[in-house]
């Protein structure tokens, strides 16, 4: 119940600024999608090829459009630095007094903050199936697999960001580390360019990192490129990464709380 309460309060807070909502939906996300479309078209136009890797021009445009929508949900409020701010400013104190888990509280806030993003994604993504009909093999099963993969990716991204922010207990500013995480996730997660266009040796190395499960894996699930067995294996690895990062987070949290003074840094 507390989780739900926290989620709905955060959702209401986010939707109280309607200008932010409409600007973020129409102009912000729209601009990002637009730039990616031009990028994809330019690659094909100037290379003169009809196919690059496994993609036709429409396929690549579809990829970039969908990856933007998926990233909007997976990333959520990542650059708002809530955890590190609580540590720096002493705002963590009140959470320590609540009879609840700080991590769960923060995740509930993150989910609540997704509310406007979900509406924006629905508004801007509604046209995609019609415009790109037939371009990819999307079935009900693949859609469900994609949604499950997005849910796990959201948790994984949250955990990675939180672990980095917990370093705030020792370091004077962790903003750069968060940006570094975002940059690395963008390239190695398939946000900037499909992973299938990486050379085989690079893909082999990336398979040992959590990044492919953030964006590329949900998209592969959606476009029917994964068999149920592949999907299950990928989900297992993604959940394994979640578990590993969560354990690291727990260790950092315990060590960090020994340092915490409650009055900010």
């Amino acid at each position, binding site marked *: 119940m507390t989780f739900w309460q926290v989620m709905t309060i955060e959702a209401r807070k986010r939707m109280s600024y309607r200008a932010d909502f409409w600007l973020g939906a129409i102009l912000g996300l729209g601009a990002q999608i637009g*730039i990616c479309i031009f990028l994809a078209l330019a690659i094909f136009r100037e290379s003169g090829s009809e196919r690059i890797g496994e993609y036709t021009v429409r396929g690549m445009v579809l990829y970039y459009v969908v990856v933007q929508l998926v990233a909007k949900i997976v990333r959520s409020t990542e650059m708002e630095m809530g955890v590190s701010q609580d540590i720096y400013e002493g705002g963590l104190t009140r959470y320590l007094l609540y009879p609840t888990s700080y991590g769960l509280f923060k995740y509930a806030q993150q989910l609540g903050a997704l509310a406007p993003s979900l509406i924006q994604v629905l508004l801007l993504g509604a046209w995609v199936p019609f415009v790109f009909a037939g371009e990819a093999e999307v079935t009900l099963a693949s859609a469900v697999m994609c949604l499950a993969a997005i849910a796990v990716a959201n948790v994984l991204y949250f955990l990675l960001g939180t672990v980095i922010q917990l370093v705030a207990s020792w370091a*004077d500013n962790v903003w750069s580390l968060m940006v570094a995480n975002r940059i690395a996730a963008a390239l190695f997660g398939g946000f900037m360019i499909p992973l299938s266009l990486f050379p085989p040796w690079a893909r082999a190395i990336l398979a040992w990192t959590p990044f492919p499960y953030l964006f590329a894996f949900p998209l592969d699930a959606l476009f029917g490129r994964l068999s149920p067995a592949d999907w299950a294996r990928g989900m297992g690895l993604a959940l394994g990464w979640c578990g590993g990062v969560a354990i690291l987070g727990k260790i950092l949290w315990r060590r960090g709380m020994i340092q915490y003074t409650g009055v900010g840094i």
Partner: protein
Amino acid sequence: MIRYARLYLHFLRFSFSRAMEFRFDFFFRVAMDALWYAVNFGFFWLLYRHTGLFGGWNYDQVLIFMGAVFVADAIQMTVFSNNMWALPMLINKGDLDYYLVRPVSALWFVSLREFAANSFLNLLMALSVFAWMLARYPLSLGMGGVAVYVAFLGMGVFLHYCLQMLFLIPSFWMHTSHGLRDVFWSLEAVTNRPHGIFTGWVRRLLISILPFSLVVSYPTRILFEGITFPLFLHMTGVSAATFLVMLLLWRRGLRDYASASS
């Protein structure tokens, strides 16, 4: 002018004094930018495995373009970014009050008050990468050409500042800046891509009403294609017009400033 220069020296002194206290931040920022450079170079390296040209430029040309992007970004991060980040909060919390009672330009004060001394190393790093890209270019660019390029890049950085202000000033009326900031950062991605990838009315939009392509792309185009009078006029005209619009909007914003209660 001299007075403002002396005031700015004070800002620099303050900023460096403060930045020295945050040692980790210096190193983290250098690591962050190094990763950003590597990821961008990696992105274009992957891209050029599948195409010979991108936005009309070959790989060596795009590397110079990226070097210029890094320099423009480093200047923006060092000189403007902390101030731009703080402006909506100053407006919403009513902390703009003290800037408005001083006998100096409030716009100048809020735009330049904080110099991010902890990004200074990044600026040096960006300049080095840029110089390296220019030096490794197989064709001769000429000192004159490079000088003109650098001058137009400077104009591009100023234009970037004006554009960012245009997206922040509405905080006077909207009392929130998240939406517009998101829009700005989404559109700002245009500056990291060669202008040649855009076509039709979008291309025209990005060199006129939303002149993000004029920040780095157009100066780079001038470097490779040479300066012409129409290009010169276009760049200076649009930059001047953007600045004037920003100034008018700022004055209007101050007029409507509500100043949150203390």
